[in-house]
């Protein structure tokens, strides 16, 4: 068993030893930027601006603001990438404590926006959502905790990891921002899963979730949540109310066909039949104007970024980096999949934007924090990559 492992390791090791000669350039190493991920993100951003221009009916100002946010995002990413991943690892517990404090502060002096009390409006600072930062801090601390402990995690470790995840998630739920709480929880769970959470427990959790969901639906779900579930199963229950969005968005997507109606010709979006056509439902605009092929191109770009993220995770220098990179990548996927699933009718309506495509500067900048972390991990691994 040992020899087998060793021989495998040897093979991998020798490959890696040969890698430096074939590495692209020392330039990227110096500026600590991963060119592959950068390329994917650049293409995604350009595609996003392109779609946004049509979705906003040619509103140059909106597109310009989005482009500026993206530039800021790239800057943030580059900045984040300059710091060694070990720095993040060391500061993870402190960041976590600070995060909890700020979340508590939000509950006390937070500002309501869109029905959620999740914004902090401190004098001298732009208003921001501290809960967004927890999307990174939580997986970071869970990875910090599990990365230095044996894998698969024991019950005790699962318990602590769970606690690390659920405390901020609970605080965010108190802010009435279920969507973010769910994402924060999932980012923690992704770390646990990648850390080798035993299948027994995984399945037990799944079964528990399946059993719990009717209970949630009957006793805990809010009326608008119930509506979303009902209209997911049959949008035509309330075609002008809760089902309207999904019906119109399906009409837009379906009428786009294989090749789409052409740029700027999406009647559904330009005649305002699609609600939220430049935020949550922007995929419908894309699907209507560029058809299945246009959506598949977007899927391909996303897949490119995800594969690169998985690659970075696989080649990270230590378990902290691996778990964090894996979790960040999967969270990114979860984001886009929830949105695409919602717009196509594959999932119930959950108000999440389509990452890097939907209008919204804050969301863009936040996403780039994650990509900055990924790049920092990639640099620590010595630029190792599968190819």
């Amino acid at each position, binding site marked *: 068993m040992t020899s087998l*492992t060793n021989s495998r*390791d040897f093979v991998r090791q020798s490959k890696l030893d040969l890698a430096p000669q074939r590495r692209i350039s020392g330039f990227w190493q110096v500026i600590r930027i991963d060119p592959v991920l950068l390329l994917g993100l650049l293409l995604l951003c350009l595609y996003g601006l392109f779609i946004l221009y049509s979705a906003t009916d040619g509103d140059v100002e909106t597109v310009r603001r989005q482009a500026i946010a993206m530039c800021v995002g790239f800057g943030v990413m580059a900045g984040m990438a300059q710091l060694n991943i070990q720095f993040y690892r060391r500061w993870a517990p402190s960041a976590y404590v600070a995060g909890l404090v700020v979340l508590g502060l939000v509950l006390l002096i937070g500002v309501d926006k869109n029905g959620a009390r999740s914004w902090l409006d401190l004098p001298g600072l732009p208003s921001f959502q501290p809960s967004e930062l927890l999307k990174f801090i939580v997986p970071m601390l869970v990875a910090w905790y599990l990365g230095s*402990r*044996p*894998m*698969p995690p*024991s019950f005790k470790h699962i318990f602590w990891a769970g606690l690390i995840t659920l405390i901020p998630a609970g605080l965010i739920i108190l802010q009435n921002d279920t969507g973010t709480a769910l994402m924060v929880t999932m980012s923690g769970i*992704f770390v646990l*899963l*990648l*850390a*080798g959470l035993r299948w027994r427990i995984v399945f037990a959790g799944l079964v528990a979730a399946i059993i719990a969901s009717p209970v949630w639906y009957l006793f805990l779900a809010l009326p608008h949540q119930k509506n979303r579930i009902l209209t997911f199963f049959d949008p035509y229950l309330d075609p*002008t109310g809760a089902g309207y969005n999904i019906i*119109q968005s*399906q*009409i*837009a*997507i*379906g*009428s*786009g*066909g*294989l090749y789409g109606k052409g740029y700027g010709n999406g*009647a*559904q979006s330009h*005649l*305002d*039949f699609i609600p939220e056509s430049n935020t949550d439902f922007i995929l419908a605009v894309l*699907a*209507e104007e560029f*058809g*299945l092929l246009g*959506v*598949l191109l977007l*899927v391909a770009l996303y*897949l490119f970024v*995800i*594969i690169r993220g*998985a690659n970075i*995770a*696989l080649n990270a220098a230590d*378990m902290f980096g*691996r*778990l964090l990179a*894996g979790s960040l990548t*999967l969270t990114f*996927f979860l984001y886009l*999949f929830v949105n*695409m*699933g919602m717009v*196509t*009718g*594959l999932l119930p309506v959950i108000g999440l934007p389509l990452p890097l495509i939907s209008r919204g500067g804050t969301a863009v900048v936040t996403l780039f924090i994650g990509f900055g972390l990924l790049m920092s991990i990639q640099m620590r691994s010595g630029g190792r990559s599968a190819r």
Partner: protein
Amino acid sequence: MTGKWQLKDREEERRLFANRLLIAMIIVASLFVALTLKLFNLQVTQYDYFASRADGNRLHSQFVPPARGLIYDRSGQLLADNQPIFNLSIVRERIEDLDETLALIASLIELSEEEVSQFKERLLRRRVPFSSVPLRFVLSEDEKARIAVNAYRLPGVSIDPQFVRTYPFDDLNAHALGYVSEINRDELDLFDEEMRENYGGTNHIGKSGVERTYEELLHGEVGYEVVEKNNRGQVMRRLERTDPVAGHNLTLYLENRLQQVAHDALGEHRGAVVAIDPSTGGILAMVSKPGFDPNLFVTGISSKDYSALVTDNINTPLFDRSVNPYPPASTVKPFIGLAGLQHGFTDRDTVIQDPGYFRLPGVRYRWGDYTLRTAIGGGHGETNLQRAIYQSCDTFFYDLGYRMGIETIHSFLSQFGFGQNFALDVGYARTGVLPSKDWKKRTRNEPWYPGDTINSSIGQGYMWATPLQLATATAIVANKGKVVRPRMLAAVDGVPFEPSESMLMPDVQIDDAENWRYIEDSMTMVVHRPYSDVFRDYGTAYEAIARSDRDMAYKMAGKSGSAQVVSIDQDILQSTDIDVSDLNKDHALFIAYGPAQHPSIEPQIAVAVFVENGQHGSSVAGPVAKAVIDAYLLDILQIDFTAFEEDPDALLSLTSEQVFEDLDHAGHDHD
């Protein structure tokens, strides 16, 4: 044991992680596959369905109403025009809470309860789904602006331009021209499928007069268009269009200037004037006073305005007097006289002795002479037909009528259109009554009495005729027997409209053509025979017409008539000599045509004037007729009669040259 587990086997853990990451990526991949399958299902498999749903969302087929044909008078004056107005319309299907929207609109512009209730009524009618239903007509610029500013709060509410009828002369032609108003349920129910489709975009339909008679010509054919609308129902662009075919433009015989003259000449009186061109039967004027403003009906008359119109029981402005029957009274005398001449019951020279009353053989009851009831007394003395006409001697006609019998009167007068509607395109005109034995049996189940004939021979009793019928009969006399049927329509889109042969009526045959001239002379004397030293030998309308205009350039033939009841003196009411019929209202009538007795110019116009409660046919109705004929001959046709000067004294055929100007004319304005 625990110690062993505490040890980190880095390679093992790494493999575990790689394993998990692989599984995660497989799940990611399969979810992408699921997403792609879903997209394939929507965009390829169900493409046709969703494509048509998308078109259904945005594409709307709608009717384009045709422009209603314009109506001109004979001189090309526009009588009925189309003007743009802006209406506030609502697409019901686009509105969630109607009451909320109505409340919001009411906070922006004035919106009466009546308009709201009318709107809700319109909503209940048969209509195309997603069609605009008008709520408020004729928005002002200010109201338009206030709605436009708040358009974002008012999805499904739009401002629609619309061309609607306007009648530039307001009440002047209201009865003859009629008006258009919103199509009502009953009218819709009468439509067949094709009609209903043709009226798909039309809100209005002709309700009366020419507008109703020629609805089919005026309406035109509906067009269609396919438009793209956004989610608020606003039209973004037009994609396809079948243009509507505008309605035909009509030219009428009506002469607006003559309408105005007739309207003014009637003054404050209630009444009607009908003028006909004897050569064609074209109706030159058809006025009923008081009129009403037809423009009020076009965009939905308010109940306040409407009740003002219908509750006025005395003036009854909506009531068309020009086509309503009244006792024609003495205006029938020329026709009765002509009947007597034609059927040999009298001749041009027969003279009777008039004691002032008529008595049936063996009956003590005396039919008095209305025309003399307030005068000096006695009769006209020796009277022939001509004198009986220009002096309007009842006794002569009692005798003549009695001898002829009602059947002869009936058959002869029916040739002139009495008792029937001769009009080609005034279908709504009443027929009046030309009584007969058969008619009385049929309608009243009573036998015909000799006294009925006597009343009928002076145009009273059962005899009823409309001003239109009187004008028609007068035109036939002016034509010396050539029957013309009155009509409004002169041309369609500039092409003259000629009635077909089958619409022609046989002419009135008079064996001795001299009798026509004789009647014309008699009627001309009504107007022109001056006072003389002979007792009761002037024309009844001489003072009111010829004497008041000594320079009258042409001769006018006329006949006055009065059916008096209301202002009868108390002593006459109690007199047993006079049969006071309840039907005899104190109305003044005058029929006339001109020029008469002209050597080279045929009569150009025949007129009937009816003045409700006008008291005196010659002095009240006569000048109205003169004003109309004057205006037509002198101002409109501009005939220069001075070129045809003739002997001014030709009419004093009986005796003196001398005119008794200082005579006491107490009874002269009687018929």
